């Protein structure tokens, strides 16, 4: 999958909560389809199912990019889903909390996204189906300046997109 490919992002409108909007934030090539595109969460082949039943995100400790045991469990399930649903590709977004300088957090988010990328590949997902991007501290989902919010912002989110070849 090339960076220039016209990825159609399928985004679940069925939100887990007010702050769990997992759509991508940028990109002229991106068509965000709210609503029907992500499919029915009860359909195990749907991106909505991936997002909500499999779990689309893993969390990190402060200034860390190593995967916790529970993160690995989530990623094992993500890898199985991706293996079972080869029509889809994924973009892994790395994020940081606001405690850090902008450039460093971009690099830290990249480390986190890459940790997920490497793990999924080690579980058999073809690297050609995965892309990584870091948002640093630019896109928090929780906005308080306390650890309860920071913990949710230190994340890597696997965003399902329609495969180029599909």
């Amino acid at each position, binding site marked *: 999958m090339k960076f*220039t490919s016209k990825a159609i992002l399928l985004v679940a409108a069925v939100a887990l909560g007010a702050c769990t909007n997992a759509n991508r934030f940028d990109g002229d090539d991106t068509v965000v389809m709210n609503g029907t595109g992500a499919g029915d969460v009860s359909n195990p082949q749907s991106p909505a199912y991936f997002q909500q039943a499999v779990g689309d995100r893993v969390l990190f400790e402060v200034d860390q990019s190593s995967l916790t045991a529970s993160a690995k469990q989530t990623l094992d399930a993500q890898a199985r889903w991706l293996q079972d649903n080869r029509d889809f590709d994924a973009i892994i977004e790395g994020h940081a909390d606001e405690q850090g*300088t902008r*450039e*460093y957090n971009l690099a830290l988010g*990249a*480390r986190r996204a*890459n940790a997920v990328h490497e793990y999924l590949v080690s579980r058999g997902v073809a690297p050609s189906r995965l892309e990584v991007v*870091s948002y640093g501290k630019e896109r928090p989902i929780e*906005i308080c*300046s306390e650890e309860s919010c920071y913990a949710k912002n230190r994340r890597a989110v696997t965003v399902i997109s329609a495969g180029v070849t599909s």
Partner: protein
Amino acid sequence: MMAGFMTLFAALTAVILAVAGPAEAQERGPLRIEITEGVIEPMPVAVPDFVAQGGAAREWASRIARVVADDLTGTGLFREIPSAAFISPITSFSSPVQFADWKAINAQALISGAVEVEGDGKLVVKFRLYDVFAGQELGDGLRFSGTTEGWRRMAHKVADAVYSRITGEGPYFDSRVAFVAETGPKDARRKRLAIMDYDGANVQYLTDGNSIVLAPRFSPDGQSVLFTSYRSGFPRIYLLNTNSLQSRALEEQPGSMSFAPRFAPDGRTVVYSMTRGGNTDIYTLNIETAETRRLTSSPSIETAPSFSPDGNRIVFESDRSGSQQLYVMPVGGGVPERISFGQGRYGTPVWSPRGDLVAFTKQSKGRFHIGVMRLDGSEERLLTASFLDEGPTWSPNGRVIMFTRETQGAGGQASLYSVDITGRNLKRVRTDTGASDPSWSPLLK
């Protein structure tokens, strides 16, 4: 409108006025402020409205004097004497100054000026600076001419001349700042590139806010800015001409992200960070040939590079020791030398235009600071402290630092602040929206 902006100003010219009488410019007159670390008493200065020579000039005469006074008092080094205290108004630019009347109200410096609109619509601004207690002129009178749209620049030029003569420092008021204008809540923030006068006036927006943009950096000629944009869906570095608003991607290698660009003094070389396989290193790129060169290869994060003014060295941050610290390396490569050793994390180093100091962001005990240190790491001084201060940029004369301050909590907002390198005169820079990532231009030509 924007396209003509800088061109109009190219017409701005300065001419030394013929000096009436034998007064000579003094090398070191008694009217002098030494900028030191100590607390100083601001120098009392009188800035009467400039004399309007002809009716068309009336609209500018007072406004120009106000900008001159704001520039000077904004430094914290001057205090303006209110016009209500004036004993003898200045009604003519050429008449002798009644020094006794200004001495009586303790005006140590007096700026007298005149404004005229010439037949072709050109605005002409003249001024003289007087050392009241010595009873003589300090330096030569100057005459600036340009378009009426450029009236604030002419005011800044007058203030720059006054500031430089009295402090002995280089000028900095006639300059601009590129920054990121921010609107919207923290979890859906819109960011647009913008550019404004150093004091927050004349804001112009350069991008539309559809993509995240970060950290604009001026070229050495002040005509273009480097920045990072998510336009492609991925962070990449772009070069934008501030006159034509044309921009182009500089680095588009698939599978990579690029950010933190900054020009070398040559105006052709760009140093930046590129991330590949989760690892961030420092590269240079020639904007004419697109030739790239890798300067660091280490599994740690290397970012926020900044050139020395002579172009021979680069200061940057790396977490190779386990936490963010500052390092200096020769441009040709070679072993980086660590320069920061205090407690806490150090990032975003920026080499001062004078070459003597590096400004940085420091994180320590849950607080953020803007600080300066010498290039060997000695004489570290923290200038600010808050929930989140970051991203310093230097004034053209290396005396003032502007930076981003972000407030805490769900309603947190970013704004720009400036502080002297002595740690004095911390103040907010006026902007209509939230603002972050300032980049101070060189002095305008």
